[in-house]
Structure formats: C-alpha cells, structure tokens
C-alpha cells in the first residue's frame, strides 16, 4: 500500500457512497450494510496480516463487541447506533488488549490456531451460558440515531447503511494512514524478519500487539453493526465459520489496497446472494470457485487490479556490488 488515494479524496468518496444509499434499492441497502460491516472486520485482519500473522478467530472480538452492546442496550436502554458502535469497538479493543500481548510471541500457524482456539472457547462459554440465552441468544430493540427513531423500514435501513459506510470509511482512512506510517513500515518489517527488528532495538511483540488491538477494535465495531442489522445475537457470532468468512474476504482483497477490502466484501455478498438465489443447493461451491479464480488469476488479491506494487513491478535485473562501488 504505497502511494494511494489522498485522505481528503477518501472522505469525499465516503460521503458520495453514503448519499448513493438514497437511490439504491432496499435489498441492496441491506446487502451493502452487511458488506461494510464485514469489510470492517476483514480490514482488521489485513492490518494484522501485515505483521505476518493471520487471525482465524476474529469471531471472538466480533461476538465480544456484539454481546457487550446487546447487554448494555437491554440493561440501560442504550439504542443509539453511534454509541453502540463505539461501545462495540471499545469492548473489542479491551479484549484485544488482554489477548494480544499473550499471543504476540507466537507466529505462523501457531498464532492462527491459538486465535481460533480462543474464539471456540468463547463460543463454548456462550452456548453454555443460560444468562446470555445459550445457543439461542437473545433479541435487542431497533437502533436509533441521535434520539431519532425510524419507524419506516426504508429509513431505518438507510440510517444503518449510512452509519456503517461512514464508520467503515473512517476505519479505511485510518488504516491508510497507518499503512503509510513509520509504524506501518515497521509492521511490514516484522512480517519480513522479526529477529532483525529486535536487533534494531524494536519490540516485534509490541508491534504485533498494537496491530492486534486495532484489528480487535474493528471486529468489535463490526459485531455492533451485525447486532443492529439482525437485532439478535447468538453464539454463532463467535463460531469458526464466521471467522473463516472474514479471512475469506481478506484473502480475496489482498493487502494491496484498503478499498479492495470493501470491494471484496461487497463481491462476496453479491456472489453469495445470487448463487443462493439461483443455485440454492450448491452456493458454497460457487463461492469456492470464485475464491479459486481470484487466487489463480489475482494472487495478490482484488486490489492488485488497480494497485501496481512497486515491489512487484520494479525494473528487472540484479544490482551488484560493482554498481555500488566507485
């Protein structure tokens, strides 16, 4: 993610996409809301993947954020959509703050499997917890915005769409700034050679932990969106297949572009919806073929369609020491 869109241009794009919601058909609005929410959590996976670690258990933070928001909404009647997103993000971030430093010392498959295991432990606890509705979960009320209620379903959908697009857009801009920063460069360095990072006097574990917390914040906020969209929460939020879908989006997107995460998330929702409509018994097969096609033809992800990585397109040839010496 080198030279990309200017943040001001991104703000304008987010505003334009939000306003587009006024003319989109209702079914597209719901789909785009889910896609934006999924893109948010997948963006977190991409952030973390830049350190060379993939989390297969983001469902833990997704469910953690969702459950916290749902419990607070039911206990204190807090229904404001923006407040719920903030609470979800904080809850996810706090969970990440506890777990991140503990697993940052692991890498590769061990890191992935540990995150998966922790999310499944959380899933098991939720299923067994009768106070949280067990495997059935529980319902929450309709969200509001700054004291306004939306009785009209179209307006309620648009409100949720707008909050989702704006939040995800802000997260996208933040991620872009992160990727271009000194910290972002050091994160790539950790992925390349974490021992050398330590020999430079930097803490690879701290860099991984910070990226982990950022990913957990995004996941918690995404869980709040899913809760608001469904007005119901259950342990499925923490199940491994849920986490797997988010990794799926991250793989589709690649790490070339923040925008690619949103495109990949929307593409996945469209493929899923249409294949479910026309091939109801084999829609997973279509999804699998779609992923295979992306891996085969776009190994660096959908983002490589419009981002030409300087690392991938640099001049051929090897510079020798003779070039370096006078």
């Amino acid at each position, binding site marked *: 993610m080198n030279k990309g869109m200017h943040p001001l241009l991104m703000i304008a794009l987010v505003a334009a996409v939000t306003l587009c919601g006024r003319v989109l058909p209702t079914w597209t609005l719901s789909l785009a809301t889910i896609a934006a929410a999924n893109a948010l959590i997948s963006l977190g996976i991409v952030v973390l993947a830049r350190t060379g670690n993939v989390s297969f258990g983001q469902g833990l933070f997704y469910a953690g954020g969702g459950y916290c928001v749902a419990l607070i909404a039911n206990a204190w009647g807090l229904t404001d959509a923006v407040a719920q997103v903030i609470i979800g993000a904080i809850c996810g971030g706090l969970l990440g703050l506890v777990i991140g430093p503990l697993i940052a010392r692991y890498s590769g498959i061990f890191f992935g499997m540990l995150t998966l295991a922790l999310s499944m432990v959380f899933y098991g606890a939720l299923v067994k917890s009768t106070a949280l509705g067990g495997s059935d979960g529980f319902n929450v009320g309709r969200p509001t915005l700054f004291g306004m209620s939306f009785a009209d379903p179209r307006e309620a959908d648009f409100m949720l769409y707008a909050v989702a697009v704006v939040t995800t857009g802000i997260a996208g801009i933040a991620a872009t*700034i992160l990727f271009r920063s*000194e910290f972002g*460069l*050091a994160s790539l360095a950790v992925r390349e050679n974490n021992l050398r990072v330590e020999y*430079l006097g930097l803490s690879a574990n701290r860099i991984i932990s910070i990226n982990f917390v950022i990913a957990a914040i995004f996941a918690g906020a995404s869980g709040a969106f899913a809760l608001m969209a469904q007005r119901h929460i259950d342990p499925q939020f923490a199940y491994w297949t849920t986490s797997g879908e988010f990794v799926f989006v991250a793989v589709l997107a690649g790490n070339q572009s923040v925008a690619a995460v949103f495109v990949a998330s929307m593409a996945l929702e469209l493929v899923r919806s249409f294949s479910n409509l026309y091939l109801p018994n084999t829609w997973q097969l279509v999804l699998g073929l779609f992923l295979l096609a992306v891996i085969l033809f776009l190994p660096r992800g959908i983002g490589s369609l419009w981002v030409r990585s*300087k690392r991938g397109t640099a001049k051929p*040839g090897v510079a020798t020491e003779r070039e370096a010496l006078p």
Partner: protein
Amino acid sequence: MKSVLSVQGLNKRFGAVVAADALTLDIPAGQKVSLIGANGAGKTTFVNMVTGYLKPDTGSIALDGLDIGGRSPRKVAQLGISRSFQIPQLFVELTAAENLTVAVSGAGAKPLSFRSPAQAPEIHDKAVELLGRFGLADLAERPISELAGGVRKLVDIAMALVRRPKLLLLDEPTSGVSAEEKFATMDRVIHAVSPDAATIVFVEHDMDIVSRYADRVIAFYQGRILADGEPSHVLNDKEVRLYVTGGAK
C-alpha cells in the same frame, strides 16, 4: 585503555559440542579486532552471546562495565551493541531506503509514530545519508530482493550503524563479495563505519583482509582462544597456522 567489552569465563555447550570454553577477553575502545577460526570454532557463537541471541551457560559479559549477560538482542542493541550478519538479515520486500527508514525510526527516543516517513525529512535524510556513505544512494529505491549479495551486505552493515553503536560486530563482512571487489568493499565499510563506530569486531576468513584491516586478531579453536595479539604475531603463530589458517599468509 578503557574496555568497551569485557568477557569473563564465558562457557557454552550444545550437547557434547563445546562452543565456548572459558572465554576471557577485553576489547578496548577504538580497536578493530578480527575473530578468525575454522567453521565451528565458536566465533559466531561468541557474537551471538555478546548480542544476546544466545545465553551463556556461565560467565559474564559487560559493556562499558554494565553486565549485559542474558539480556535480549533488543536490550543489547539499545545499550549500544549492533551487529551485521553473515547472511544479511534484511526486509527483502522493502526497498533499501525503507530498510534504513525502519532502522532510523526505531532508533529514535520516541516510540514509532503514525506519521508518514515522507512527513519526517530528518528520518529520510538520515536513511539516504547512510546509504550514500556506502555508495548506495542510487539504489535506495530498489527492493532488497533485486540487490546482489554484496550490496545486501552493505545495507545490512548500514542498518547496524544507525544507533551509533559503542561496539559494532560484523559477521564476515566480505563473504559473498567477489574476490576483485573485496578490498574495495572493505575499504568502503571501514570508511563508512568510522564516524559512528570506533570499536569494531569482525569475523573473517580471508587472511588478507585480516592482516590489512585488523589492529588485533583473536584466533578461535574448538571454543577457546588459541592466540590473541597483533596480526603479524597471531597469523605467524605455529598453532594458528596449523589449526586455523592452514598455512595461509
């Protein structure tokens, strides 16, 4: 003269293999010391213990009088010992300038920031200045994956210099460099590191390089010091010629 590095009774075993056998030595400030020895003699083990990668079984390591034994490579680097590697340890998908940028931004007193390196000219300038010192300014924007082994060595050494170390350890700085380029490369290395690292320890197999650039030579054999002194003395030592140089020079 005051010792920068002081090692007392350092021992390290890997099973039955003795990699360090009661190593005791002092390195005064300003010396250029060459470590020589056959493969497996314990040179790299010594470097790995001094830089915190390996913990000695027994013995002490002090930097400027401060005990650093058992500290992590990160802490040791922060205290003032830097190293380069026999096989350059770089971030191969990043450019040479980006490699140096990571090193420079990590060496600052403040934590890593979320500002772009483009907004921090002092970091960029330092990175380019260091590359320029090694004659690599024109290659700054080339990914490491496109650079030859010898150039990677120089980038590796440039990164080790960023912290202006009290002690710089270079593990075979000319290995992988062609025979006709090795003196030019070493000249450039010595010239480039001199402003930032007065005390240098380098592991070397090439006795021409050793005799030309070292003030002092320490010969290792089976984890112990076989000879220690001026190059002319050590390289002509009977045991060194028998077990280390094989009659070279």
